[in-house]
Structures are given as C-alpha cells and as structure tokens.
C-alpha cells in the first residue's frame, strides 16, 4: 500500500516502490521525525495530554476549593504566583495551576471528542456521497454547502442556550457544525480513488460494493482522516473556549480554559496572570496541534514532499 493521494488521481509509485519494502507506518514515522517543528509540537501536545490525564496526581490543590484566607489578600485581591500557589490564585482564591490541569481535561476532552465525532460524521457523509454518487451525492453536498454558509458560531450559541450548557451538549453541538470541511475532502479523495484501476479490477472480480468500499477505497482515506482529526481539534478547542468564555460551556465551578479566561477578564489590569496562563496554554495547544497535523499530512503524503 504505497499510493497516497490527496484529491488527485495521478499515479506516482515509481520512487516509493523503488525503496526497500518497509511498512507504511514506518515510512510515515520516518518522514514525520525528520520534520523538527511537528516533532517538537508532538512532544508538547503529548506532555499536555499527559498532564491532563495525570491532573489528579499532579495538582497540588482541589481545583474548586476556594482558599478564602490564604488565597486572597486582605482586600480580597487574587494572589500573584508564589510558593504555595505556583501560578497564583483567581478572584475566588482558587489555585490557578490546579485549575489549569483540570481545565485541560475539560478543554482537551471536549476538543478531541468533538473532533472525533465531527470527523466520523464527515467520513460517513463524504464516504456515502463520494462512493454512491448521483442524487445522494448531490443532496449531501448541498447540505454541506448549506451548513457551511451559515454563521455557525451563532447557531452553536443558540443551540447551547436552548439545550442548556453541559459537557455532552457542548460536544454534540460543536461536532454538528465541524464535519463539513472533512466531509468535502473525504468525498473528493474517494471520488479520486474509486475510478482507479485496482477498484475497477475488484469490480471485475465480482467483489460486492461494501467490500470494495471497506477493503479498497477506505484505506486510501484513512491517512486523511488522521490528518483532519488533528486539523479539526484546534477549531473545536477554540469553540469550546469561546462558549466557556461566554458562560455557555461546562457549568461553574468546573474549570475549563475558556471559563478561566472569563474569570480573569475582570482582573485584566489588577491580576493579568489569571487570564494570561489559560490564554497561553490555549495558544500553545492550538499551535502544537496545528503543527502536528501539518507534519502528519506531510509525512503521510509523499506527493507533497519536495
């Protein structure tokens, strides 16, 4: 399995097939580790994931506990970073470091889950549209156009308000509006693949449609799925942060990065670190996942290599 294409039907296997036989995964890995920035980004993202997973072990304090005596000044001000509260406290005397760790679980969790669902929907819709074609393709693609033409964030806001904010509502609503771009890409890839000779060959050998789709077409889309998974996550993390910032994310007092920025908003002059830390972490996460996604795309697509 050495032919990887993105939206093109060109056949370019000579160079690859000339190399000694190695697994595709090894190939991708080799190409990935050669890129410095994506590799670094991958490490950063891995560390973030690890911190999120290990939050209960690492966090020095309960993230919702309000340290009203030790965590606030005599006038009720939040504390700057110090030895007891490494990143300082927020307006309610809660430990910012612990909240950041637990907030990562919420923000990354929602971001990853929403992306996974979105890509899955995209794969389903794009797959059916591309493979079946005809009227179904037409209808599904018009649906994609329709959703893409809508001011999605405002509709997300509206839906969340109507459905009452909560983890699953946020995940569902975000993913419902994030699958269109992957669906389009998957469709065009499938369109490209399904007219290739080996698919024709399978047809001629009498293979049933579902077998052709699952065994011969889908594997050519999977690398794209991984890439799009990575490229969708930043958007969903942003969407979650924006909702939480507006008070429509996960209900208080559960921390999420977006709601932490909101908590710090009123203090942006008196205690700028409250918003600065979650803001920085969001930026770091998004940049690292973006780099990771780009790196994966490069690694999985030999055509893109210079």
């Amino acid at each position, binding site marked *: 399995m050495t032919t990887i294409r993105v939206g093109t039907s060109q056949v370019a296997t000579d160079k690859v097939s000339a190399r000694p036989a190695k697994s595709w995964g090894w190939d991708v890995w080799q190409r990935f580790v050669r890129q410095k920035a994506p590799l670094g980004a991958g490490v950063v993202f891995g560390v973030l994931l690890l911190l999120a997973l290990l939050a209960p072990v690492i966090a020095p304090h309960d993230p919702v506990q*309000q340290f009203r005596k030790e965590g606030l000044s005599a006038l009720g001000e939040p504390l700057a970073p110090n030895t007891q509260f490494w990143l300082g406290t927020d*307006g309610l005397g809660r430990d910012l470091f612990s909240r950041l760790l637990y907030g990562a679980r919420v923000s990354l969790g929602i971001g990853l889950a929403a992306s996974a669902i979105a890509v899955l929907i995209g794969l389903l819709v794009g797959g059916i549209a591309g493979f079946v074609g005809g009227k179904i393709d037409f209808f599904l693609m018009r649906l994609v156009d329709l959703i893409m033409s809508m001011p999605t964030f405002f509709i997300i806001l509206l839906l969340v308000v109507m459905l009452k904010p909560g983890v699953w509502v946020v995940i569902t609503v975000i993913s419902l509006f994030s699958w269109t771009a992957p669906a389009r890409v998957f469709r065009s890839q499938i369109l490209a693949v399904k007219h290739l000779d080996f698919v024709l060959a399978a047809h001629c050998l009498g293979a049933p449609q579902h077998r052709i789709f699952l065994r011969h077409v889908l594997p050519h889309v999977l690398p794209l799925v991984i890439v799009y998974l990575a490229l969708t996550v930043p958007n969903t993390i942003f969407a979650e942060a924006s909702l939480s910032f507006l008070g429509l994310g996960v209900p208080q007092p559960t921390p999420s990065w977006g709601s932490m920025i909101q908590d710090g908003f009123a203090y942006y*002059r008196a205690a700028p670190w409250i918003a600065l830390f979650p803001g920085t972490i969001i930026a770091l996460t998004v940049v690292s996942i973006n780099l990771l996604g780009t790196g994966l795309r490069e690694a999985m697509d030999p055509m893109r290599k210079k």
Partner: protein
Amino acid sequence: MHSRDPRNGPNPLLEHQYRLSRRAFLRTVALAGSVTAMGALLPGCAAPAAPEGATSSADPAASASEPKVGGVYRLTGTGDIRSLDPPAAESSEDWWSAGMVLYNQLYFYDKDGNFYADLAADMPTISDDGLVYTIPLRQGVKFHNGRDLVADDVKFTLERQLWPDVYSWGKSYMENMVGYDEVIAGTTQELAGTKVVDDYTVEVTLKQPQAVFPALLSMSMNAIIPKQETLDAGAEWGSTVVIGTGPFKFVEWAAGERAVYERNADYFKTPPYLERIELYLNLEPAVQMLRWENGEVEWLDNIPSAELPRLLGDDALKAQLRMAPGLGTNRLVFQQDVKPFDDVRVRQAVAMAIDKGAVSQKRSGLLTPLEGHYTPPMLQFDAEFKSDYQLDIEKAKALMAEAGYADGVTGIKMYIGSDEEIGQMLQSDLANIGIEAELMVGQWKDWRDATRAGEIGLFIYGWGASFPDAYDFTSAWSTCASVETGFNDGNYCNPKIDEMVATVEAMPLQDPERIAAYREIQDITINQDVAWVALWSGQNVALGRSIVHDDFMSSIYGWPYLETAWMEV
C-alpha cells in the same frame, strides 16, 4: 398632635400596596449584585493622575476652609436620561437630577438620614384620626423662572402624576390618598383628598392612617413642579422646558450625551457654590475610569469592582472615594413551598452555612454583612440584633441530617443576579453542607417567572428602599399580601406580620412602639421562620476628587448632594 388609632383587622392598603412599579423593578435588578455589579471592564491605562489635592495646596486645611463660588462639576454616568419630568425620571441619572438637583420635595432626607422639611415650612400637623395631614409651605420660594411657589403648585404636583396620560413610576405609592382611584381612572383630574387651604397651606386626606406618608412625599416623583408652566409647556415639559425650585437650573439636555445645569443664585436656601454641573451619559465604566484618570471627571459613578482594592489600598486615592451606606439589602430567599426548603431545619442549616464575612472581604469590605435585613440608614435598624444562625458548618450538617438530607441534596437551582463571583462563593458554601446548587445568572426579569413558578429553590434578591423606613421592605416582601401583589416570591406568609403592620402604621413614624414592632417583624422572619438569610448591604461608592468638598454621597440616590458642595478653583 399625633393620634393613635390601633385599628384591628387587615389594612386594605396592604392588599395592593406594591404593584410592580418601574422604579422598584429597576432597583431590584440593579441591586441584585449591589456594589459589586459594577462594570467588569477596566481600562488598560497608565497610573492615575496625581491627586490634585496634593498639588493645589500643601496645607489642605487652609484651602479647604473657605467655600467659594465657582467651578464646573463633571459627572459620568453609565445610564441615560429618560426625562427630567420628576415622575418619569426613573433611571439613575435622571432620578438624581429630578430628586436632588433641579427640584425640591416637601420633605427630604439629609446626608445623615435626618428627615427635614424642605419646601414645607414644618412637619405636617396630623388630625386625631391620623387621616388628615396639614402641611405648611415655606414662603418666598421661587421657581427658576422667578415665580413664587404656592399651594396650588403642590396640589397640582400630587394629582398630575396620577393622570392616566402622565407617565409615573411611582403612582401606586400614593394610593392611600383620598381621590386616588378616581384620578387614576381618569374620571377627574382633581385629587379630592388634596385641598388648598391658603397660598401656603395644603391639606391631604388619607384613606387609612399611614405613618410613612410624609416619607412618600420625599420621593422624587413628588418633587414640586409649577402648575401653569407645566401645562403651558405641553410635550416639551421635562425635555426642553424644565422649571423647578432646586439649587441648580436646567440649561440643556443633549439626549444620550449630556445634561448641563447651572447655579441658581436665587435659591431659597444658601445658594450653591458650584457654577455649573455637567452630567455625561452612556459611558462605559472603563471609559469613565479613563476620564477620571485624565482629570476630566469630578464624580465617577461606576468603579469597576476589580479596581476597588487598588483604590482602597492607596491613601491618596481612598481619600477621593465618596461613600455612604446604601439603603439596599440583599437576601438569600427560600422557596417555601418546595422541597427541601419547606423544612425549617434546612433553612436554618443554609443560614449557618453562608460565610458572609468571606464575601465582604472579597468585596474589599464594601459589602457589610447583615444579621437582619434592615440596613443601617433605616429608622428600625438595630445594631444589637443578631441572627440565631451564625456560621457553623458542623451544626448545619447535623440539621441537614436531622431533616433527612444526610446524603445531600442535588438539583437545586439558585438565582444569583449578575455577580457570578459571589454566586460561586455561595455555591461553594452550600456544597459544604451537601447542597449542590446550579447557578442561574442574569437579569432578574428573565428569571422572575421561573422563580414565581417555584422552579428556583434559592434566589438572591436585592432591594433598595426609596426612603429609610422598614415599611418599604415589609409591605413589599414580608407580608402575606405581598405574595400576590409584591415581591414576596418565596411565598412566605405569616399572618401575624400583616396584623402587626396594620396596627403600627396607625402610629407616628418615630413612635417607639412602631419601631419595636418592625424590629419584631425582623426577628420573626430571620430567627423564627427563617424566611430568608439576610446577606449584606452595599456601600454606595463613587470616585470623587480631593479638590471638591462636601459633595457627600447620598444613601438613597447613590449620587452626590451638591447643594453645599464647593471646589477649590
């Protein structure tokens, strides 16, 4: 002079005393977060301008001793002006303009809460049955156009605001006056119960004895307006034609932008010192703060709450704050008809779980924790009063267990107004005794239906009185009658309170027995029935300037007294 008529039986007055008046509505919304509801935006700007006081004089006592005429006093407000017609002035800026600047009322409260005769020459004489108030008027008071104020103007003022085609937020406050219903219905324009005895004497007849009646006359909607001039101005009245008796005269009002007033040199008391007042409207707190720091403002109405510690922590800045205890009270109210708050033990437990001191500290001490729900400026406030339910988590938990909620309670909705920070503090306090509360944030009007429908188990209600007397609180949300007609949205009803109010309202305002009765009502609601937890009262806080003197903060209005204020110019 005064009479007592300890009537028995219910007071019909109470049955529909408090309809949802616009003013009350606005106050309720505004006070939900009290002082802390102030804007969250702050300017990212340079250090504050050096306090002028420091530069203008090395010896403040020398320059601060002699009031001088002159100076432009600039104020910034977050809100807009709707109208400068007293009964229609209902937002913050126009309410103050009408109530304290351009007009006068018959009676008023000074900065220390003392009730005094303003346009009236003296306190009213009350008939033996407590129904007829004879009010002598001050002579030689001139309207801004030079005409003398006479009794006819007073009668006109009292009846005009009740006319169907005149907008007033406060009509229902006056419904105890004889003739009220006919004027409201539009069958007549004349208030039968109000008589002009002579040019300087007015007589008002009431349906029921009502000790607070003189206090109602101090409300801004009863600011005295000139009869003929008002009628002649027609639709222009209150916008381009504004004629009062107040310390400052109307100059101009640019809608949405600013209002300008100037010194009334013919004022019937000592003429004011300030030459000119400029009130700037519709300004974000952040913009106000910038202007103040640029030295462009003498009175900043909305200080962003995150800025307060900085202002309070610096002596030079702190000296420029203008503060007065507010008349507003905040309570955590229980929905009495709904589990688990139908059980008095749960209510007691909640009362013992709330850490008011921590909230007060969080707000830099500008919220004063309350034991009872009366606030310091009120006649009936009792500094000795103590709640039986002081902070005690263990005892509270024991009570929860006793009530059958040892495993905690989930699914409680709590309406907290707009201050989410304080809401989260209460949420955490409740979690300590096993009550898991979901916060409902936002404007009161958006949640009131749900609250009244019993969907909200706990809610923070703020309430600002229009005059410093417990009657306002009691009739608005402590009586059984107020479940239907007022703001008693927790459906608390103890018929004894209704009886007590009916009895003591027949007594003079300051009668010790009347005061004692209202204190007992507070004890019943707070300690016996635990109808709500008294939380805190806010300070009215604004940022002034050290070069300005005697611009005292008003407890009622939250804006300055400018009658005697002066500037170093």
